[in-house]
C-alpha cells in the first residue's frame, strides 16, 4: 500500500512575505481557496477554523509558526460524521526564497506542502489529495496575476 502522505511543490513568482500573508490571512484564503476562510490568531497551540459561508467545516491546532518560512497545523474535518471520527492529520507549509537573477522583479519562491500523519484506511486522505493541487494552483494564479482560478475547476 502507498504511504498516506501528500507532497506537493509549487514555484511562485512572489516574495516569501506575500506568500505567508496569503496562507495566514482569511481575506486572502477566501479568494483562492474557493471561498474558504482560514481563521486563527496563529499562536502555537491556538485553534485554526476553516469556515465556508459561515459554517465551520474543519478545525485544527497551530503546531509551528515561523514567518515567513514554516507553518504547520493539524487538520480535522468536522462536518462529515465519518471523517470527524478520524484523528487529526497534519499539514505543513515550507517557503524557500529562490534567488532571482533579475531582482527585484525576479523573485520566486518554492512552496512545499506536506500533508501527512493519517491513520491507515483514512477517509480524509483521498479528499485532501484531490483538493490541494487546485487550491495551490489558484493561490499561484492570485499571487502572480491578481486573479484566482474559478471554482468550476474543483
Amino acid at each position: 500500500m502507498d504511504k498516506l502522505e501528500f507532497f506537493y511543490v509549487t514555484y511562485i513568482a512572489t516574495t516569501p512575505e506575500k506568500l505567508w500573508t496569503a496562507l495566514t490571512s482569511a481575506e486572502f484564503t477566501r479568494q483562492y481557496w474557493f471561498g474558504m476562510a482560514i481563521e486563527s490568531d496563529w499562536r502555537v497551540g491556538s485553534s485554526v477554523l476553516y469556515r465556508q459561508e459561515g459554517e465551520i467545516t474543519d478545525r485544527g491546532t497551530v503546531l509551528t509558526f515561523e514567518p515567513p518560512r514554516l507553518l504547520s497545523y493539524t487538520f480535522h474535518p468536522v462536518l462529515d460524521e465519518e471523517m470527524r471520527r478520524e484523528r487529526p492529520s497534519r499539514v505543513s507549509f515550507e517557503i524557500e526564497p529562490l534567488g532571482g537573477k533579475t531582482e527585484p522583479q525576479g523573485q520566486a519562491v518554492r512552496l512545499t506542502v506536506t500533508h501527512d500523519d493519517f491513520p491507515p484506511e483514512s477517509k480524509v486522505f483521498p479528499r485532501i489529495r484531490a483538493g490541494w493541487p487546485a487550491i495551490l494552483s489558484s493561490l499561484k494564479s492570485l499571487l502572480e496575476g491578481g486573479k484566482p482560478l474559478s471554482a468550476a475547476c474543483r
Partner: protein
Amino acid sequence: MTKPETVYVTYIAAKPEQVWQALTSGEFTKQYFFGRRMESDWKVGSPWTLWMEDGRVDCQGKVLESDPPRRLSMTWHVEWMEEFRRLPPGVVTFQLDALGDVVRLTVMESHHESIDEKYKEGGRRGWPVILCGLKSLLETGRPLPPFDMSA
C-alpha cells in the same frame, strides 16, 4: 512498465488548445522548459526531440498517443548524459481536462521496472518547475524568473 511513479497536477486558467500548443511548440517550450525547444509533427509513431540551446539533443523518443487537445503520450529517452543514454526509455503522458474555463494538466511519468530510483529524481524535481513556468507563462505572459534549482 508499471503505473506512473511521478505524477504532477496543475490547474491553468487557459483553453485546452493553448495548453496543448504550449506543450508541443518549441517557441513556447523554450520560454519555460529550461530554454529547450520541443520539436515533432506529433503524429503517432513520429519521433520527437527536445533540443538544448546549444543544439545538442537533451531528450528524444516516439509519439505513442496524440489526441489534441486532450492527451499526448510518448516514450522518453534522456540522451545528453552518458549514464542515462544506456537506460531503457520511460513513458511521459500529458492529460488535459477542461473544467469550466480552467484546464487540469496532469503529467505522468513511468519507468521500466529495472530503473534505479536515482534516475527518477530529475523528473520528480523537474516537472514542478517546468509546469509552474508553463502556468505562469499562459496566465501572465511571463515565465517564472530564472533561479537556481539546487537552492
